[in-house]
Each structure stands twice: as structure tokens, then as C-alpha cells.
């Protein structure tokens, strides 16, 4: 009687346990993925923002105005020394 109980009931209990564990894990992983996705989006947005900032800082018109403000002049061709 006891043996047959284990033979019938135990697989059912194990199956239910596995099913519940799988459900639980999938929900946990979904949360993790959701969080990671949000982090990824945030880093991406930050990256875009920084790229814009770099490009704005290196904008030729801006650099030209700064150079003019500091009275910098284009060097004469002969005074440029190229170092390999």
C-alpha cells in the first residue's frame, strides 16, 4: 500500500514541483531580463548623449570661434613640421 503510494504520488509531487520551479524561475528570469534591458537602454541613451556632446564640442564652427577668440592663426605651411 505504502509502496504503491510512493510509486503513484511521488512522481506527481515531483512533476508539480518541477512545474512550479520552472514557472518561478521563468518569472525571475523575466524580471532579470527586463532590468537588464532597461539598463541596456539607459547605457545606450547615455552613449548617444556623450557622442552628441563630443561632436558638439568638436564642431568646426565652435573650434573656429574659440581659435579666433584666442587670436590663434593658421600656421604658415613652412612652419609645419611633420613627424613620422
Amino acid at each position, binding site marked *: 500500500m505504502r509502496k504503491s503510494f510512493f510509486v503513484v504520488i511521488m512522481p506527481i509531487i515531483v512533476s508539480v514541483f518541477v512545474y512550479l520551479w520552472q514557472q518561478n524561475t521563468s*518569472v525571475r528570469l*523575466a*524580471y532579470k*531580463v*527586463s532590468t537588464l*534591458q532597461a539598463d541596456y*537602454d*539607459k547605457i*545606450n*541613451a*547615455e552613449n*548617444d*548623449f556623450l*557622442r*552628441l556632446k563630443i*561632436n*558638439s564640442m568638436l*564642431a*568646426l*564652427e*565652435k573650434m*573656429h570661434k574659440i581659435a579666433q577668440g584666442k587670436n590663434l592663426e593658421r600656421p604658415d*605651411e613652412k612652419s609645419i613640421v611633420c613627424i613620422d
Partner: protein
Amino acid sequence: MKINNKNMIDRKTLLVLVVLSVFFVLFVKLVYVQIFLHEKINHVVEKMVNREDLEIPKRGDITDAKGKILATSIKKCTIFLDPKAIEDFNEVKEVLFENGIKIFQKNLTDLGNTSYVPVAFSVDVDIVDKIKDKKLKGIGFKNKYTRYYPEGRLLSHILGITDNEGKGLEGIEKIYNEFLSGNSIITKMHRDGRGRIIQNKIVDQSKICGQNVELSIDRTIQFIAEQELRTAFEKYKAKKAICIVQNPKTGCILAMVSLPDFDSSVKIKNVGALRNSAISDIFEPGSTFKIVTVAAALEKGKVKLSDVFYLENGKLKIAGHTIKDDHKIEGSVSLGKAMELSSNIGMVKIAQRLGNEDFYEYIRKFGFYSLTGIDLPGEARGLLMDVKKWNALTLPNIAFGQGIGVNALQMINAFSAIANDGVLKKPFVVNKIEKLDTVTETFQSKETKIRTVVSVETAQIIKKLLKNVVDSGTGKRAKIKGYTVGGKTGTAQKVDPSLKTYSTKYYVASFCGMVPAMNPEFVVLVIIDEPMGASYYSSSVAAPVFANIAQKIAKYLDIEKDDVNQI
């Protein structure tokens, strides 16, 4: 004892009956809820748990030929308040104020009976995070991409503008909107008991976001052209100014400037400034058009380089009108000299040998009165009377570039055809379109040959003539250090709209030239519309601008010096 037992049974029965009735009530309620209310409850739960969101993807970037970003989209936030959900209005105000957002309403009721009160727009993501960290109820956030142009005014006409929803309205933003905008999708999400969002589908952003567009334009060349042109534009208090730089071998546009311009990032007040004069405005080209007359006559064999023309002492009467030369030339001169000195009378005589039909054919062959097909919106076709309707003055006028309307791009493209040994190429500004963060190319521009306009021999002769114009003719001020230059000046009279005749006050000064003269690497066209000042002649207005631009570009492109006298 019996009585006691009976009482006990009654009590037990009563208790059972009470319990059973409770269960019965519960059962009835359950049946009511499950069977009669299930639709209503389902709807409420669906509304609470499920959420649909329209995902507007990041618009693709526009870069120059070297990958420098010219237009990009950044995620910004709109912060709004939901007065119905706010628990502590003062705390909400305080937190927002700490982050630079001021709420002017004193009481919660002042916000009105709505669930959406926007209080700040285009807020940076890091500020939004700081506010979110406070976990206050009643503050909502809505993400939106905002378009930025880090180079400011540079290339404004080419890049164009977008509307508030991110749709392209002008320039590349308009023409390539389909590629840049990407695919909007609706994402379905679930919320758990705590209101946290669980997505049921992971959206691959790289698949839905817009594609990057790489231009053929080099921002350094564009900057050089823009700086020099702006200086001249301000100096001569001109109405408009245009500069185009083109690679004649491929047809690709390296720079295109139209002044006045605008800053795409700032709200545009003057809508007229949006007009890209380089392709949308037509003008009478003047003497720069003489290359078409000479090239056509040479190609058709109607004239030879050694032919001599009598220049009528600077005045030629045709059909009751007098055609004059700006610089009086006495006696007869060769074809080359007529070109060097930009003789109108010489050109009339050359065109007369050619005849109406052949001249018209070559005008069209060079691409005039046809769209060039450039990938920019608003190109004008130009103006040219049907050859059958030409009168006695039409041919002589067109011979020296009056009586015909062209756009700047058509003009430089015709010069490029000569520079490219007679082969006319289709101009283009987009090199390729590719997916963001991937190397998948959707589209790659290929140089397109339109037609062979003149033979290599004719093109070589014209290049030699253009070189002479700069060496010893009207274009001396277009000379640059270390390089040979070929080019042609053009000073065209404008039609006075009130007098309906050619004005003696308003001119268009232009210069189109190529460097190096015999094997050109680039062609530059400079047009100054209505220059004010001591001189309006192209030789003193447009040619020096060309020289400044060409000198810097030649150095930037590291083109091998070819002028042995000046190296």
C-alpha cells in the same frame, strides 16, 4: 439527559446549517462573479495588468563621408503630473524644484480635473532617474527622441529639418525619411502586483530603429566653403551666395552651401531661409556658360582653335539690339583669346556658325533644362525656350549666358563633364545607408554616367582654354599657390522686375573652376547674387573667393602640386 441530547443535536444542526448557508452564499456569489460578472472583471484586470505602448524608434544618424555625426537623436523625457494620483503635492513640487523644474500652481486643485499635466519637456535622462529614485506617486514620464545637429548651421540646407514628431520636412531628412525613421511598433507589456512592467516580447531595437545615412559631403570641405563664402556674403552685402564643390570623376558632391542659411536646432522664424538656393533657384549664368558654346562648336567641327574672329570693335548690332563686350577688344582675335578675354561678340559669332538646332542639342546634352537627379528635394529644372520658338536674339543671347535659366548644380555639373573628359555624371550627396550598430548596407551609391557630352579631345581643349583664362585672362585672381587652375568668370545682368529689362544695378557674379587644371580632382562653383560695393565683376568678387576655397581644399585633400613655377 434526553432533553440535553436533543438540545445538542439541534445546536449541531443549527451550526451545520449556518456553515452550509455561509457556503451557499459564497457559492451563489462565486457563481454570480464567475458567470455573470466575469466579463466586466476580466476587462478591469486586463486594463490593470496589460499595457500597450507605441514604441517610436530612434531616428537614424546622418554622418559625413568620414563618419562624423551631423544629425542624431537623443532620448529626452516629458515629465507630467497626474493630480489624481499625487499623495503629497508639496513634496512633488520640492523634488521637481531640486531638479530645476518649477511648478507654478500653488494647490493640487489648480492643476485641473485631468490626469495629464505636462510640466517639463526635453528633460535629460539622468535628471529623470534622480526624480524616479524618489518614488513619488503622481509623476509620470514619457520618452521622446529629440533631433540634434551638433555642427549647428553647417550643412543646414542639405540636412534639412524634422517636425515635432520626427518626420523629415526638408533636405536629407525628407528625402530619406523612410530609411531614417525606422519602423514604429506596438509593444504589449504586463504589470505585476507592484506595478512593475514585464515585457512579454523582447524588442530588438537594432531591428526597428532607423538607418544611418552617410553623405558624400566632407564636413571639413563644407566648413572651408562655408567660411569663405560667408565672409564674401557679408563683405558684399549680397542677397544670396552659393558654393558647390564636386568631384568630377564620380559626380559626388563634396560641399554645398547656400546663404542665407539657418540653424536646424533652433526654431526657424524665416521660412524663406529653408530654400536651398544651390538647387532651387535659377539664374542667368553669364560668361561661365561660354564653355558650352565653345565645346559644342568644337565638337561639331564648326570652329577650330586656330580660327580668328573679328570682334566689331566691341559693338555688334543684331535685330535692332546692340551686343557689347565689357572689355573693348580691337581687331580680330583667335578663339582662345576670345574665351580668355570673355568676349560676348566672339561667342555670338561662334554660336552663329553652330546654328540653333545644334546649339540647343548641346545645351540639353550638358544637362541644362533637365533635372540632374540629385537626391535632394526641390530641384529646379531651369528655363530654356523651345528651339522652335527662338527668335533672332535668342541664340546670340544664350551664346554668352543670358536668356537661359540654370541652377547652380547644373552649372557645376557641366563644368565637371568637361573636367571628366566629356563624361557627364549624375551628382549625388548620399554615399550609403546602413543599419545602426551593424555593418549591413542597405544601399550604396554608385557613380552613374549620364552620357558622353563631348569627346576627350574637345574636353582637353576646353580645359586648356580654361587654364589660359586663369593664367592670362579674366580669371587671374583665381590663381592659387602650387596648383594650376582652369576656370571661367561670369558676370550676368539680372532682370529688373519693375522695368522688365536687364538691370544696370543688379548682377550675379560667378566663377567656376577646376584644380588641377588638366586633370581636375575637384571643381568649385562660387556665385554671389547682387554684390554691393565698388565692383560687381566676377573677376574681383567671385574669383578671389574661389581661390581661397580651392587653396584650402587642395591642401586638405593633399593633392599633388602641379604648378612647377610656384612649387
